[in-house]
C-alpha cells in the first residue's frame, strides 16, 4: 500500500491526521487511561505503603513478635520503593510482562493489563516517597497535641497528620500525573497501543516520521499543559498550603 505523499510538511501532517486519526485517538485514550489509573491507583496504594514505611518500633512497649513484624514490614516496603525507583520503567515492563506471560497461567494477560499494573506499581513507589516527605514535614507538635488529648497514634494520623500531609503533597502528586502522561510511552516496548505506539505505526506505514512524531509532540504538550492548568486550579480550590 504505497501512497504518494505531498512533499510539503503540513500536507503530510494533514494526510496523517486524515487517515490515521482513529488509531491516534485510540492511542491518546490509552495514554490517558494509563496515566489516570496509574496516578489514582498509585495514590491509593501508596497510602497503605507509606503507613507501613512510617511504622516505628517501640523498644519498650512492643513485644518480640510485634517488633519482628514491624521490622520485616519496614524492610519489605522500603526495598519495594528502592527497587521501583531504582530501575527504569522500561526494564520493569519487560520483566513483568514477559515474566507473567511466560507462566501461561493467566489467559487474559495482555499488554494493556500489564501496562496498567506496571504504571500503577511504579507510581505507588514515587507517590509513597512524596507522602513520606509530606508526613515528615508536618510539625511534630501536631502529633504531640493529638496524643496528649488521648488520641492514639493511628487516630492522630488519620484525623490530623494525613489530611495536612496529603494537602501539602497535592502539587507533587499532580506532577506525577504529568510525568505519567509522558513516561507511559515506554510501555510501547511491550506493545501497549498508547499514543506513542499509535503514532509509530502511522509513521511506519507512511515513512513520515518527523511529521507523525510532531503530531505526537503537540498532543503530549496539549495534555501536559492542560493537566498542569487543572492541577493549579485544584490547588487553589483546596486552599493555601500550610505547614
Amino acid at each position, binding site marked *: 500500500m504505497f501512497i504518494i505523499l505531498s512533499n510539503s510538511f503540513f500536507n503530510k501532517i494533514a494526510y496523517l491526521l486524515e487517515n490515521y486519526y482513529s488509531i491516534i485517538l485510540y492511542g491518546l485514550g490509552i495514554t490517558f487511561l494509563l496515566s489516570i489509573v496509574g496516578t489514582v491507583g498509585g495514590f491509593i496504594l501508596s497510602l497503605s505503603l507509606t503507613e507501613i514505611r512510617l511504622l516505628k518500633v517501640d523498644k519498650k512497649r512492643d513485644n518480640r513478635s510485634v517488633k519482628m513484624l514491624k521490622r520485616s514490614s519496614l524492610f519489605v516496603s522500603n526495598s519495594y520503593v528502592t527497587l521501583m525507583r531504582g530501575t527504569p520503567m522500561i526494564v520493569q515492563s519487560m520483566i513483568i510482562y514477559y515474566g507473567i506471560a511466560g507462566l501461561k497461567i493467566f489467559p487474559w494477560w495482555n499488554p494493556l493489563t500489564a501496562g496498567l499494573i506496571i504504571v500503577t506499581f511504579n507510581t505507588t513507589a514515587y507517590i509513597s516517597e512524596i507522602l513520606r516527605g509530606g508526613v515528615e514535614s508536618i510539625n511534630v507538635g501536631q502529633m504531640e497535641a493529638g496524643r*496528649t488529648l488521648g*488520641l492514639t497514634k493511628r*487516630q492522630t494520623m488519620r484525623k490530623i497528620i494525613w489530611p495536612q500531609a496529603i494537602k501539602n503533597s497535592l502539587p507533587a502528586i499532580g506532577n506525577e500525573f504529568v510525568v505519567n502522561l509522558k513516561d507511559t510511552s515506554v510501555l510501547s516496548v511491550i506493545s501497549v497501543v498508547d499514543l506513542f505506539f499509535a503514532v509509530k505505526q502511522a509513521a511506519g506505514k507512511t515513512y513520515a516520521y518527523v511529521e507523525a512524531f510532531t503530531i505526537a509532540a503537540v498532543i503530549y504538550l496539549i495534555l501536559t499543559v492542560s493537566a498542569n492548568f487543572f492541577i493549579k486550579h485544584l490547588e487553589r480550590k483546596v486552599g493555601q498550603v500550610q505547614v
Partner: protein
Amino acid sequence: MLLNTKNIYKSYNGVPILKGINLTVNEGDVISIIGKSGSGKTTLLRCLNLLVEPDNGQIFFLDEEITHKKANINKIRENMGMVFQSFNLFNNLNVLENCTLALQTVLKLPKEKAIERALYYLEKVGMKEFKNNNPNNLSGGQQQRVAIARALCMEPKLMLFDEPTSALDPLLIDEVLSVIKGLANEGMTMIIVTHEMKFAYDISTKIIFMHEGIIAESGTPQDIFFSPIKKETQDFVKLIKSQSFI
C-alpha cells in the same frame, strides 16, 4: 495524692538532663517549675505524660504506675491536659473542631454534646465567637486560649503548662495568664513551667526550683523568693530581682 514520681532519670545521647526527680502533686496544687534554660524543666513536664520516656524511675498517676510497660498511655493522657509553648492547634480543623475532636474520637460523645461542652470551655477562655475561625487567622494569645479550652474539654484531673506564654508577644501574655489564673482560682490542679516570675509568685501553692537536672529547692512562693536556702536558688532569685520582675 494525684501524681508522684520516684527517681526519674533521663539523658539524651549520654548527656543527663534529669538526675533523679522526686515530685509529689496533691489535688488542688498549683506548682510552678522555675529555673534556668537547660535545667530540665520542660523535659520533666514532658516525662509526666510520657511524651518523653524516662530512662529510669517510676511515675504514679491516680494510683497507677504509668511508666509500667503495660500501662494504657492513651487512657492516662485523657486525664492529663497539656498546653504547649507553640500552641499546636490542629491546622486542618477550625477552632470548634479542635475542641470537639477528642471528645468525639476518644470520649465518644455524641456530636451535639461535644459541641455543647466545647462551646462552654471556649466561652470560658473568651473564644466562643471565634469558633468557626481557622487557627492560623488568630493571634498567638487567642491560639493559646483555644489550646487551653481544647485541653479543658477533656475535663482532666491535672493540667500541664509548658511555658505557655514564651512564644507570645508581650502584649498578649496577660490574656493567657489571666485565663490560667482563673483556673487556679477554681481549684484546678496544675503544673506550670514558666519564666513569668510574678505570675508564678502570685498563683502557685508551691514553687520548684530546678538546677542542672535536679530539684534544687522547693517551697512556698514566699520561701523561694524571699528566704531561699540553697546558694543556686539565692543566685537565681537575685538575678530575677535585679531585673525587677518582682
